């Protein structure tokens, strides 16, 4: 039953947003959508914890948001285009936010991109090691 989804797990450092993850991340992603309204962004910025406590998110999900830990948010069912509403609220660009998931600092990440991006070598398949 999981054959379609399972094959993506062979790709290093990648989580595709499956139907299962969509269910797990439902409340987290709904919270993100709420930040599409300016008034909600203001309320969130004024008191993040209070805003999050009004949602049905899990404690883990809330903590990951407070920590701006995007890898954990993705593990807990978040999807990057939803999560973008959080870093947009913070005034960050995609580049700035995305770099935080790579273990590189923003300057090194930016330099890597300016030099043609992350090379595919070694990032294709865990099994094949290529």
């Amino acid at each position: 039953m999981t054959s379609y989804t399972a094959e993506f797990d062979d790709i290093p450092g990648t989580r595709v947003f499956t139907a299962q993850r969509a269910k797990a991340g439902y409340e987290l992603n709904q919270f993100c959508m709420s930040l599409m309204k300016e008034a909600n962004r203001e309320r969130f910025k004024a008191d993040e914890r209070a805003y999050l406590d009004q949602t049905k998110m899990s404690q883990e999900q809330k903590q990951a948001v407070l920590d701006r830990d995007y890898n954990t948010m993705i593990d807990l069912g978040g999807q990057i285009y939803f999560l973008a509403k959080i870093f947009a609220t913070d005034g960050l660009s995609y580049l700035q936010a995305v770099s935080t998931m790579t273990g590189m600092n923003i300057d090194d990440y930016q330099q890597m991109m300016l030099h043609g991006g992350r090379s595919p070598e070694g990032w294709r398949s865990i099994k094949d090691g290529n």
Partner: protein
Amino acid sequence: MARITHGLTTSHIPAVGAAIDLGKTAEPYWKPLFAGYDWTKAWAKENVPDVIILVYNDHASAFTPEVVPTFALGCADQFPPADEGYGPRPVPVVQGRADLAAHLAEGLILDEFDLTLMYAMEVDHGLTVPLSLVYGQPDAWPTRVIPFAVNVVQYPPPTAHRCFMLGKAIRRAVERFDEDLNVHIWGTGGMSHQLQGPRAGFINTPWDTAFLDRLVKDPDSLAQLKHLEFVREAGAEGIELVMWLIMRGALGPEAEELYRFYHVPGSNTAVGHIVLQSVETP
């Protein structure tokens, strides 16, 4: 009768929209990227279609976690820009073409494509950044636009094959429309990029280049690609490239390449831009 004469692909990077909106296009980082669209801007000025069918994906703007349509056709008269968290982009409201959209809805559903019809929809950078790249910053867009949103956010997206078949069906449906209309079709998103996890920043220039070549000359072979290959070779968000096959299918069997531009980086992404002309076959 209406005809699809040209196709165009382009990345739809949000930072590119921000660079335009904030007047940064002449900065050293952005200059080479925008220069790559100069040819197209000049060409587009001389070749304004009556309607663009603009294939794009919504990035969690119009579609909430509650409703995930595979294919959504914009049937409204107007489509306002969405607030993606930075406030709505300062761009004109997109003017639709409801009569042609209604005709496409009928033709495509009878052709067994299981569309979702949208009578009210906001459009995000996936749709507005390509318009800005080609038409700049006008007070009103110079043409009508029918938004066609494809799910590439939740897995599985439609297959490359399904997208290619849809393109062919769009061509058939447009040609059954009574009015003489010049229609262009755009495919947006891609090329290689990944916006998540330790693998973020992934770029695969050789694969992208081969994809562009095959898109022009051998789209049938691209239609056989599996999702796994897109993610493996073009990054998690490179899956957006399935949408380009809708564009290509709608141009008919043969297409001539008028212009090509490829550039790394645009923010996290490889920018791919190509302009094609349909070669009518009898």
